[in-house]
């Protein structure tokens, strides 16, 4: 713990919400980037049950369309 004295110079009522807010914004940005740059996230959210792992499922579903990225 090398930054233990941080809160003697940064007000916790400012620093803590700022820190949590930054994590929330970052997380939102990553999820949004995934949503807009992949097909499988949207497919998953649409309840696309045909989505199979790329190398085919063990159940041997007849030529189930694998959602490619």
């Amino acid at each position: 713990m090398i930054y233990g004295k941080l809160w003697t110079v940064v007000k916790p009522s400012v620093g803590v919400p700022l820190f949590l807010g930054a994590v929330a914004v970052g997380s939102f940005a990553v999820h949004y980037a995934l949503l807009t740059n992949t097909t499988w996230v949207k497919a998953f959210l649409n309840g696309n049950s045909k989505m199979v792992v790329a190398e085919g499922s063990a159940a041997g579903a007849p030529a189930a369309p694998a959602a490619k990225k």
Partner: protein
Amino acid sequence: MDDPNKVWPTGLTTGESEELHRNIIQGTQIFGMIAALAHLLAYIYSPWLK
């Protein structure tokens, strides 16, 4: 000059600041572990990296 009872501009002493920081670090570690688990589940159940 490191007076443990000195109240700094933020209204905290060094001890209080370190106590708060220990909790912030622990919270961040817990967040990190949950995120790692989520990434593991995403790797297993989604086409990510396949």
